[in-house]
């Protein structure tokens, strides 16, 4: 079994060794296995380095609801668009800029004259508020635990009165549980996202594993990290062991970043909410607590969109099924035709972490 001790992250020789081990493990397991990874960065590295070609055909590694841009619900985008169109300055991460709402994206709103700015971080949005004291600045905050922590830190650091947060932050573990229980999915194990686990720690996946009888391994983002994570998963499957393993120890600890988790807990409460195209997921949305109401865009402004001009194509979009691991981008009639990175219909085609964009960019597994 290969250990992490002498890991070189782009060592093709090591990759071959890991692939050989995985082959042997699959021979021993002697049935089809589906591993779901919960991170767009995992899909990026798998597709970019052609890792699927190394894996036996009985082992599938599919992407779950692991792209924060993709799971942001359409009405949440509509809220941001409505605020921009009402004259507020809306700041957001670049990936969110072109995600379609029910009738338009923030990019469309900007093209029509609304004030929308792309920022690199929550603190950049605060700077924008400080530089524009006469303007209400709304930070449309998206992402999982990693970015939620920085939004929480900003709200705790006494931001200016004209700074507000429209939170679309989401918490991953409950989504994993919902997907694990979907009758149409057949997930044997999860490869959990290493960067979210740097905040939460890996210990918390213990309850997910136990409740759903499914092993979880936390993995990093280099080719060898992913293969090593898969090897660790198969070791658990082989021994019929439902447990949590950390295959990313150089970044992830058992407890995680306690200060960051504390900030998240102090600023946000967990509420139920829709994840785009997947389901209404209990306890998976980070909603700003009442103590921070003066900076909550939802509590201070009317955020509902008045538009009902839904694009007909969005009805045909199967991003939800793709994020639940039920369908692949190739199954979508719009993929690469009506839906492209230049003209995305669904959110999975927008972000660099979206399954559809990644599939279009790297072309999938060639059948040679």
């Amino acid at each position: 079994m290969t250990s992490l001790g002498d890991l070189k992250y782009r060592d093709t020789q090591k990759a071959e060794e890991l692939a050989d081990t995985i082959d042997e493990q699959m021979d021993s397991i002697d049935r089809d296995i589906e591993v779901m990874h919960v991170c767009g960065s995992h899909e990026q590295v798998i597709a970019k380095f052609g890792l699927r070609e190394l894996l036996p055909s009985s082992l599938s590694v599919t992407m779950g609801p692991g792209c924060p841009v993709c799971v942001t619900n359409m009405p949440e985008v509509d809220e941001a668009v409505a605020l921009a169109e009402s004259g507020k300055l809306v700041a957001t991460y670049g990936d969110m800029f072109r995600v379609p709402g029910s009738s338009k994206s923030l990019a469309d709103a900007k093209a029509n004259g609304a004030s929308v700015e792309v920022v690199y971080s929550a603190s950049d949005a605060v700077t924008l508020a400080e530089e524009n004291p006469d303007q209400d600045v709304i930070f449309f905050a998206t992402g999982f635990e990693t970015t939620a922590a920085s939004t929480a830190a900003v709200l705790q650091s006494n931001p200016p009165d004209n700074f507000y947060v429209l939170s679309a932050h989401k918490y991953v573990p409950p989504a994993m549980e919902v997907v694990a229980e979907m009758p149409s999915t057949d997930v044997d194990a999860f490869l959990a996202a290493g960067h979210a686990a740097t905040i939460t720690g890996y210990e918390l996946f213990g309850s997910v594993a136990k409740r759903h009888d499914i092993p979880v391994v936390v993995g990093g983002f280099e080719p060898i990290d992913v293969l090593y994570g898969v090897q660790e998963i198969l070791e658990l499957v082989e021994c019929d062991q439902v447990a949590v393993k950390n295959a990313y120890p150089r970044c992830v600890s058992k407890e995680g970043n306690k200060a960051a988790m504390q900030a998240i807990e102090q600023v946000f409460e967990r509420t139920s909410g829709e994840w785009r195209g997947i389901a209404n997921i209990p306890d998976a949305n980070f909603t700003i607590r009442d103590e921070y109401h003066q900076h909550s865009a939802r509590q201070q402004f009317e955020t509902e969109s008045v538009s009902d001009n839904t694009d007909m194509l969005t009805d045909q979009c199967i991003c939800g099924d793709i994020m639940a691991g039920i369908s692949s981008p190739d199954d979508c009639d719009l993929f690469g035709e009506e839906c492209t990175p230049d003209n995305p219909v669904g959110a999975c085609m927008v972000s660099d972490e979206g399954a559809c964009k990644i599939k279009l960019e790297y072309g999938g597994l060639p059948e040679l």
Partner: protein
Amino acid sequence: MTDEDTITIAHGAGSKKMRSYLEDYVVSRFNGRQTSSTTVGLQAMDDGAVHEIGTKSVVITTDSHVISPLFFPGGDIGQLAIAGTVNDLAVMGATTPLSITCSLIIEEGTAVETIDAVLDSMKQTCDEVGCTVTTGDTKVMGSGEIDTLAINTTAIGDIDKGGHISDASQSPGDKIIVSGTVGDHGIALLAEREGIDISGNLTSDIAPVNEVVDAALQAGKITAMTDPTRGGLGTALNEMAQKADVGASIDKEAIPVDDAVASAGELLGIDPLYVANEGKVVFCVDEPDADRVLSAIRDTEAGRNAAIIGEITDQRQGSVILDTGFGKRYMTEPQGQQLPRIC
């Protein structure tokens, strides 16, 4: 107005969108109106057109040049205007240009000194390839109607009748050679625009490729060649594979990429295999001649980093397969313009 009704930057970015637009709206309009002497016309979408005149094949090509900033690490728009055009001629097999035209479109308010520097650079590059500007035109537009300067250049050259080389005559078994490190020009420019300084090591590769092409042609049988400019190596390989209806198998580890270019590419989120080169050539070479051609290219100054990066296959016609060293995947044609990472 929708995206389909207007021209966007992506229509000119060397992507699939650009090729589709040219095929559907431009080439289809002019197709079928060739003169009797035309042996390579617009429908070939090659680097230039070829006319058979008397005992000669005359090659003609044209290019327009706009770039920001006008002067950048390793070059300037003047050098680009001459090298870019004579390179299109060279990769058709015409390595000695007979004549170059030059059209300048200048924004009102531009310093004479700026244009002087550009013209000096054009002259110097002409001297390098042994030709000169023989006719031209100058227009001045109002302030804000054009961004400082645009240059159009056209070049003609001649070769023995039928001696031109297309970008689509390769066949399975041929080796693929790239004449040096790829992505230098595109990454240097993006890094300059984004203010990324990597120890000052990023410079454009702008240079005439005549010497490299001559060396290759003399050393063995070149079956196809092109210069991978806009859209980079990835786009050029896909276009060649689609035109010739062959496959291509590429070894990623063999593709020469400068360390600084690779680092800046990672930082910017831009793949060096898909950005512009302005002094490189992709050759397809008859397999028995491949090592000899590689050696001859490496003996030239501009070709010292040349490498065999793969071969033409009869599998997955029209597609390029990339062996990453870990596994294989498609090396796809870019869908639109590559943009630096935002977050």
